[in-house]
């Protein structure tokens, strides 16, 4: 606004801002979305910076070399360890621990370390003491939950395998905790002497041996790792550099940030409907003033700038508030208990995160406020002479639509360039766009139906139904916003039902399964006997087991073969394998034929057909494995159906012909069906076979898995909640317009003889009908979305949840009638005359 009339402009801006409480919803909607975006961005930045800063501590060294089954041999060490490097060796395995009195026992993630541990970072113990001191002379430190689970205390003995050790401290945090992937049971740390005393790691045991290195030239660690990989392309071990060692965590943080960013955007977009609603309702109340100012000689641009400035101030307020909240929220992470995160977080306001959140907030405001502003600009002062200056219903021009599309495109581009996963973001934005468009069509149809229904409805219901059908009112954006939230909630519920049904359908047959690992060849027979004689136990299968690494595919180093993303994992590290004289019962090969039972020829292998396709190999091609340092060629004889991980049976990627691998150190793995009550007797019987034989309880694993699933569900429910909260903000933003309309209608109806009760019924019917339409639209959208997710993303049959359906409908009704009740008594109690005189 230029020129000497600035005081007038600011006076008008200020008076409107102060006198229009409804405008506060613009601030609320923006602050809400921007705060979430800024908080997610700041937390993401803090985590990534910490990962960068503490990379060596997180890996436990500059480099980590991990081998399956057996530690690095002297030759391997001589070949790969660089001169001047300090090293620390650790072994990890899964085994059992129990109290000395033979009471409860629990699965633990055992880690044996040497005196050099940790090379980087610090081990925090409670009570505080150096780790060497804690582990000396049969000492053991235990992770969270173990003491409680076994009813033990510091100083108590703990039995692991054949050794009785002493608990010296609880492990609060260990620097290299995040290594090793999925962990069953709490961590227990011992030293190498204690490990030997336990006897849990024997030849062929399922264990990992990691040598960590602190190299003199840490800056050069990536080059060093690359050099080792280059020089030993077919080695059985895996080499990681600290700089690139946390791709999983990095990806997880990136994806989580993308997910939460999209959640914030969904909330912001829903809030955008509120912004549009509040802006439109505010400006349509100002059309007379705008026309008057124009009639008095104000230029149209000046008037537009006046109201744009108003929105700008509100935007600035909302965005600033959002930025302050967003910068402050990540500090809540500091309140998390020590040791929950594998590193110490130091959140700092991130200028980039705050700037992008602010820019996105500003664009959302522009996208949603443009059309109402443009409508205000088109207000003709000539309308004052016709008495229709307050209709403002002229449709947007092509140019204005184009501007909105351009602003929306800029918003999408901004989101895409600031996210870690642009494709996921683009797909989600596309899906939300399509869903919103479909919702728009659905809501318009439902509104029209309400209009048609009004003709047939009893007289008392006609007025509320016509109000809902009225075009250009606040009903459409309100219903859309609410339906989006309810739709997401439906997706959460229905998809959860699909997963529950799937888990439920698969679990019963194997629910009581226990997997036993590390059964030595000479323990096989006694183990089978122990199971056969145990009450209620049924041996499902027992197969030989060893770990090896696929190093060559048809003569080409596996790392150099272009393998699809879906099969990449099969060559990344060592894999469990078995051998068999016959195919699994009932299985037919996709191609080739299983070897005869008495096969004695060259080693053959059966692999899943989809994996073979990913490798680009077929029957007759040769795969080369590094088995305990020895290169072993196997010819592909059978292509099997794709692995069914959910079958409850042991699923092996590679099944070999017999006659060759038996000579290598190996163990057996067995599954036993047994009810939980019969377990202790079986475990005791198996312990007599050997303390190295470790049971893994499938139900515990499933509990860990469903725990993860529950966390995912909570996260998705959080997103739905955020969007629903935005929907409620929109509802509240529209309430002012609703109240103004109801006040007027109430005055007229009272003048025509309506009682207060009639009015309350009429208005509540209107709110209830709005809620029903929103609930119904949300349900249709949510169920359709769940079907798509179930079918395409999860590959599971859709299962309808009646409870969620009813719940969502009731929630929609409760929200609209609940907010509708607010202030309704005042509306219907208002005297008629002043309203009609002012009208």
């Amino acid at each position, binding site marked *: 606004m230029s*020129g*000497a*009339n600035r*005081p*007038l402009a600011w*006076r*008008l801006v200020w*008076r*409107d801002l102060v*006198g229009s409480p409804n405008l506060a919803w613009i601030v609320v909607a923006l602050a809400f979305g921007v705060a979430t975006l800024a908080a997610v961005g700041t937390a993401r930045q803090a985590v990534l910076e910490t990962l960068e800063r503490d990379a060596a501590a997180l890996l436990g060294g500059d480099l980590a070399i991990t081998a399956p089954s057996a530690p690095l041999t002297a030759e391997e060490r001589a070949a790969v360890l660089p001169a001047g490097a300090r090293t620390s060796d650790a072994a990890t395995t899964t085994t059992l621990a129990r109290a000395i009195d033979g009471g409860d026992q629990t699965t633990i993630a055992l880690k044996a370390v040497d005196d050099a541990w940790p090379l980087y970072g610090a081990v925090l113990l409670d009570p505080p003491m150096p780790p060497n001191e804690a582990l000396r002379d049969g000492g053991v430190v235990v992770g969270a939950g173990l003491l409680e689970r076994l009813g033990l205390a510091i100083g108590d003995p703990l039995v692991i395998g054949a050794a009785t050790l002493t608990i010296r401290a609880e492990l609060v945090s260990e620097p290299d905790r995040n290594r090793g992937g999925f962990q069953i049971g709490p961590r227990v740390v011992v030293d190498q002497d204690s490990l030997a005393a336990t006897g849990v790691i024997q030849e062929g045991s399922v264990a990992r041996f990691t040598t960590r290195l602190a190299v003199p030239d840490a800056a050069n660690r990536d080059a060093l790792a690359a050099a080792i990989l280059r020089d030993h392309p077919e080695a059985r071990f895996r080499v990681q550099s600290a700089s690139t060692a946390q791709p999983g965590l990095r990806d997880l943080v990136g994806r989580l940030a993308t997910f939460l960013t999209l959640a914030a955007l969904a909330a912001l977009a829903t809030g955008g409907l509120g912004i549009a609603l509040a802006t439109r309702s505010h400006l349509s109340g100002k059309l*007379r*003033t705008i*026309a*008057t*100012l*124009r*009639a*008095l*000689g*104000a*230029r*149209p*641009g*000046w008037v537009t700038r006046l109201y744009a400035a108003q929105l700008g101030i509100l935007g600035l307020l909302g965005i600033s508030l959002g930025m302050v909240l967003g910068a402050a929220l990540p500090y809540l992470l500091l309140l998390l208990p020590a040791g929950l995160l594998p590193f110490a977080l130091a959140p700092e306001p991130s200028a980039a995160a705050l700037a992008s959140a602010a820019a996105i907030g500003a664009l959302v405001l522009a996208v949603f406020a443009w059309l109402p502003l443009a409508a205000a600009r088109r207000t*003709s*002062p*000539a309308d*004052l*002479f*016709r*008495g229709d200056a307050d209709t403002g219903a002229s449709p947007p021009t092509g140019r204005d639509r184009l501007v909105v599309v351009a602003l929306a495109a800029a918003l999408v581009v901004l989101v895409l360039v600031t996210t870690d996963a642009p494709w996921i973001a683009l797909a989600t934005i596309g899906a939300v766009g399509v869903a919103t468009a479909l919702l728009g069509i659905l809501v318009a149809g439902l509104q029209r139906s309400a209009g048609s229904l009004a003709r047939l409805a009893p007289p008392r219901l006609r007025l509320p139904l016509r109000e809902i059908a009225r075009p250009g009112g606040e009903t459409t954006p309100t219903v859309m916003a609410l339906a989006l939230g309810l739709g997401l909630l439906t997706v959460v519920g229905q998809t959860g039902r699909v997963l529950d049904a799937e888990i439920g359908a698969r679990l019963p047959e194997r629910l009581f399964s226990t997997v036993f690992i590390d059964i030595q060849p000479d323990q096989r027979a006694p183990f089978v006997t122990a199971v056969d004689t145990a009450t209620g136990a049924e041996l499902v299968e027992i197969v030989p087991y060893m770990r090896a690494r696929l190093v060559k595919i048809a003569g080409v180093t596996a790392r150099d073969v272009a393998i699809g993303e879906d099969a990449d994992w099969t060559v990344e590290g060592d894999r469990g394998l078995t051998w068999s004289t016959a195919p699994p019962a009932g299985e037919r090969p996709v191609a080739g034929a299983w070897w005869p039972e008495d096969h004695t020829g060259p080693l053959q292998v059966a692999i899943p057909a989809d994996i073979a396709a990913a490798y680009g190999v077929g029957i007759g091609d040769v795969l080369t494995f590094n088995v305990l340092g020895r290169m072993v060629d196997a010819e592909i004889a059978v292509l099997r159906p794709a692995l069914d991980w959910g079958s409850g049976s042991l699923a092996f990627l590679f099944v070999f012909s017999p006659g060759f691998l038996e000579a290598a150190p190996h163990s057996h793995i067995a599954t036993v069906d047994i009810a939980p009550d019969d377990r202790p007797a079986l475990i005791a019987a198996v312990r007599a076979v050997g303390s190295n034989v470790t049971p893994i309880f499938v139900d515990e694993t499933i509990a860990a898995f469903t725990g993860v699933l529950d966390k995912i569900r909570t996260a998705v429910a959080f997103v739905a909640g955020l969007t629903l909260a935005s929907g409620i903000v929109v509802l509240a933003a529209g309430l002012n317009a609703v109240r103004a309309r109801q006040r007027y209608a109430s005055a007229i109806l009272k003048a025509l003889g309506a009682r207060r009760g009639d009015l309350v019924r009429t208005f509540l019917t209107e709110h209830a009908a709005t809620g029903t339409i929103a609930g119904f639209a949300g349900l249709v959208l949510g169920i359709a979305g769940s079907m798509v997710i179930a079918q395409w993303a999860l590959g599971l049959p859709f299962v309808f949840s009646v409870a969620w359906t009813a719940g969502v409908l009731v929630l929609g009704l409760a929200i609209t009638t609940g907010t509708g009740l607010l202030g309704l008594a005042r509306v219907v109690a208002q005297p008629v005359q002043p309203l009609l005189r002012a009208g």
Partner: protein
Amino acid sequence: MSPLIVVDSVHLTLRAPTGPVNVLRGVDLAVEAGTSIAIVGPSGSGKSSLLAVIAGLEPATDGRVTVADVDVGALDENGRADWRRQNLGILFQSFHLVPTLTALENVAVPLELAGREDAEERARTGLERVGLGARLGHRPSQLSGGEQQRVALARALVAGPKLILADEPTGNLDGDTARAVADLLFALPREDGATLLLITHDPALAARADRQVRMHDGRVDHTPAAGREAAA
């Protein structure tokens, strides 16, 4: 003396959902400077539309409107806004005061839009002229209908316009209040030497004008009978 307003074969066609509506169908009119003219006629005869075209609020579909030798239709939107600010004062039937501004601030609006430093002082004088010197700080909602219309009159006159356009200025007021506003409406422009163009259904109000013109079906009825009828 050349006429202040010259309306030459003005047509106005508005688009409506049912098709185009010919609101003005070739209006010719000339109004001398410093005089008052009342336009009468039945509802829908095009009176208000003629006012809007003269004020440059609605561009004529055809024909020409000249006010003080300025071809209003030749100005662009901003030009018309500036011209209106400098030359016109408008009075509406529904007052159209800005509800968030006080009486004083409402009257000051045209002067502030023109960037006048003495806006408040002149607005105060303007309100005193219409007898509202004691109501400067009141908002429109705190004023009666007659008071609101007097504020609107002060606003119309405050910038010293050459032409006052009044659309049913007493239409929303009761008899005594209407008479008081009408007294001011005729007296003050005359004092300032401004021309008054008035639309009214009230024969008594129309009779106070120097000249009356009857409109019918989008045209000015120039027949002598119409003139007599309008003056009656």
